[in-house]
């Protein structure tokens, strides 16, 4: 990699290492339990929250069992999907539509509504012309906020279950409201203003027509872009105003915004890990988990940066892909010049280990190795560092699995944070690990057998298989990025991808809550010399191994037929 790429990576790592623990401390102070606990900013936030609880007729002091918590999450998801579906269907007849977007078709509305409610933000529609400003603001942005808050709320409940001593794991409405009022909204307002100062647009004007220098005309888009861009990233959502997302100069105008965008995505999931360490009173445990996440993050990001800078070996030698002071070089098909090959790969593949899947370049045109790095980050289960909340409960489940395997290997009773892992938990954990691969592999292979599945493929051969497999894996993990050559706005893909997103979001949530609920009543045992240390480097390395082996074994055949094959044959 050239110097610029390393400098950018170092900058991102340094800022994350400084900000994530600080933000984690703020989150821990905000979400610490106990009546009468003071939290930072109470003077401003507490009156807002009291009014919300009053409107909801919810007693903020009451706590829920895991079943009630799960039902609140599911009912809220169902109702908000229905409302968003209605907005998308009717947007053509609703106000605030200067671009004259017509109502979306039933299957596209179904797909898009689920996509944003689940935090996936798979976009089968064209942003500029197929969504009204009203739909963007009152529909999609609202969904981006709520999806993020639901993720964080569920993570808090799971932590209480795994580490706490009560059978009750918190109040969904309190967790949800506090996440919005004290984390997502204030950070979004600040972040949006920073983005606008760099050139991200924020207006309600619609298209303006310019007369170009050469005598033609050009439509210049507008829209409330910055306000959506920031929660798209901060909420690890990924859905943009414009078709090409973070590659659009109006969304991501400078090198600064490119890395600021990446930081908006990854700092909060890491901070949530540090919050976890403080909440359970074991900061070393959080450090071990953060180290695992950072190792995986660096793995897929560096590999992709290196591959894209190296360039596309299939292009003729008379095209200069060598980086120099006057030419960024590298694989520039589908990349913006201001970011260059390594900056593009850093931002795009850097967000692939979160559920954001925010891109500043076209993944379909990545080299086989660079594309595979993005793919693998998704397949490992979105834990490097994962979505807001989802990263935490995702890696906690894998940590429980690792404790069990390690316990079998050395002949000790598996326990995590003092609680024994028994058959009840293991059944749920295995269901959690298998739920997504089963859906992904079933739908992806069915698509390859059907004309309605293969006709929308753009690229021939193994690359085409990757387009389809990537689509299902991406939406199942609520990532939402795409090998966008696949023309996915067809009834088959709209509906099956929609179903995949629903399962990929809510099966893990319900299972994680169930695991937490089953541990919630259990007594914590004191640490003895026989207890397996889960916060040391040995366990961290073991956890990486389990993550890679579990993900690898499940998906290896698919990867061979896709990117690995393309690399070897090409």
């Amino acid at each position: 990699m050239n110097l610029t790429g390393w400098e950018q990576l170092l900058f991102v790592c340094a800022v994350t290492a400084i900000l994530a623990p600080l933000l984690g401390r703020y989150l821990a102070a905000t979400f610490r339990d106990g009546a009468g606990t003071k939290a930072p900013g109470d003077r401003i936030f507490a009156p807002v929250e009291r009014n919300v609880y009053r409107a909801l007729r919810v007693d903020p002091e009451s706590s829920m069992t895991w079943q009630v918590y799960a039902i609140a999450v599911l009912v809220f998801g169902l109702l908000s999907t229905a409302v968003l579906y209605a907005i998308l269907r009717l947007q053509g007849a609703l106000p605030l539509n200067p671009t004259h977007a017509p109502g979306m078709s039933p299957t596209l509305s179904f797909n898009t509504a689920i996509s944003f409610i689940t935090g996936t933000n798979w976009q089968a529609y064209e942003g500029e012309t197929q969504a009204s400003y009203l739909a963007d603001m009152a529909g999609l942005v609202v969904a981006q906020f709520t999806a993020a808050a639901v993720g964080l709320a569920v993570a808090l409940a799971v932590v209480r279950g795994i580490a706490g001593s009560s059978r009750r794991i918190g109040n969904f409405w309190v967790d949800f409201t506090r996440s919005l009022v004290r984390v997502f909204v204030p950070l979004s307002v600040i972040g949006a203003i920073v983005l606008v100062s760099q050139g991200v647009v924020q207006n309600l004007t619609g298209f303006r027509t310019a007369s170009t220098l050469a005598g033609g005309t050009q439509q210049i888009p507008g829209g409330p872009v910055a306000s959506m861009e920031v929660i798209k990233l901060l909420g690890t959502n990924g859905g943009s105003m414009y078709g090409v997302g973070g590659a659009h100069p109006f969304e991501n105008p400078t090198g600064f915004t490119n890395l600021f965008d990446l930081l908006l995505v990854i700092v909060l999931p890491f901070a949530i890990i540090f919050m976890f360490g403080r909440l359970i009173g074991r900061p070393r445990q959080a450090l071990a988990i953060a180290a695992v996440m950072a190792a995986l993050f660096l793995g897929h990001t560096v590999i992709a940066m290196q591959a894209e800078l190296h360039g596309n070996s299939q292009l003729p030698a008379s095209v200069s892909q060598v980086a120099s002071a006057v030419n960024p070089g590298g694989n520039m098909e589908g990349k913006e010049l201001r970011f260059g090959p390594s900056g593009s790969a850093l931002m795009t593949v850097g967000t692939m280990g979160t559920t954001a899947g925010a891109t500043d370049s076209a993944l379909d045109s990545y080299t086989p190795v660079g594309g595979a790095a993005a793919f693998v980050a998704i397949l490992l289960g979105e834990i490097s560092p994962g979505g807001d909340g989802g990263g935490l409960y995702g890696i906690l489940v894998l940590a429980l699995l690792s404790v069990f395997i390690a316990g079998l290997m050395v002949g000790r009773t598996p326990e995590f944070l003092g609680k024994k892992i028994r058959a009840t938990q293991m059944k749920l954990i295995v269901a959690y690990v298998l739920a997504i691969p089963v859906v992904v592999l079933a739908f992806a292979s069915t698509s390859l057998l059907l004309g309605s599945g293969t006709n929308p493929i753009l690229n021939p051969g193994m690359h085409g298989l990757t387009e389809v497999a990537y689509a299902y894996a991406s939406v199942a993990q609520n990532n939402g990025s795409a090998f966008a050559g696949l023309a996915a706005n067809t009834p088959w893909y709209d509906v099956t991808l929609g179903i995949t997103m629903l399962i990929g979001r809510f099966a893990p949530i319900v299972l994680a809550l169930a695991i937490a609920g089953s541990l919630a009543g259990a007594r914590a045992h004191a640490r003895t010399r026989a207890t397996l240390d889960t916060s040391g480097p040995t366990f961290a390395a073991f956890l990486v191994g389990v993550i890679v082996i579990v993900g690898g074994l499940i998906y290896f055949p698919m990867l061979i037929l896709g990117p690995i094959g393309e690399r070897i044959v090409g």
Partner: protein
Amino acid sequence: MGRSGLVRQACACIAMLAIVTALLGFGYPLTVTGISQLFFRQQANGSLVYVNGELRGSALLGQNFTDAAGAPRARYFQPRPSDAGAGYDGADSGASNLGPSNPVLIKLVTDRAAAYRAFNDLPKNAVVPVDAVTASASGLDPDISVANALDQARRVARARHLPAARVIALVRQHTTQAQWGFLSEPTVNVLELNLALDGLR
């Protein structure tokens, strides 16, 4: 949980949806719009470029410099190939999405390289900068590399009957160095450069 519990959760859901739609769906974006229009008017409206009161484009968006038949105009620096609609269509941002091993991409790049050499009077074996023959991710990339601009400078100078040195100096003058030294790549903004050529800036 009894049915009353379920009903209570559903009522809370409806109330919450109404609250977030009002406050986050309207309050939040309109507040941000207000602040942006007050303090960052130029940026918030798309960094628009007006010449004598007429809107000529955006400093952040590339545009076509072609004649009515779609052929590149020699007197202007040419931007990167674009897959936004028919080229630099601001209403239809997009990439080619061609895979690295796709024969269509290889042929496109080879043909573009030959056309670039012919258009700029470069030797048959000249090495072409990669950004000149590949389409960007947005189809609206406003920039080209310094190497690409320098390769085009002589042809532009000839078409405008200007000394090459003067056009090259203009390229140097309109080269944006990397932000903070490392946050971005060095770039040349094609619209700004062509505006300078036309003596409009």
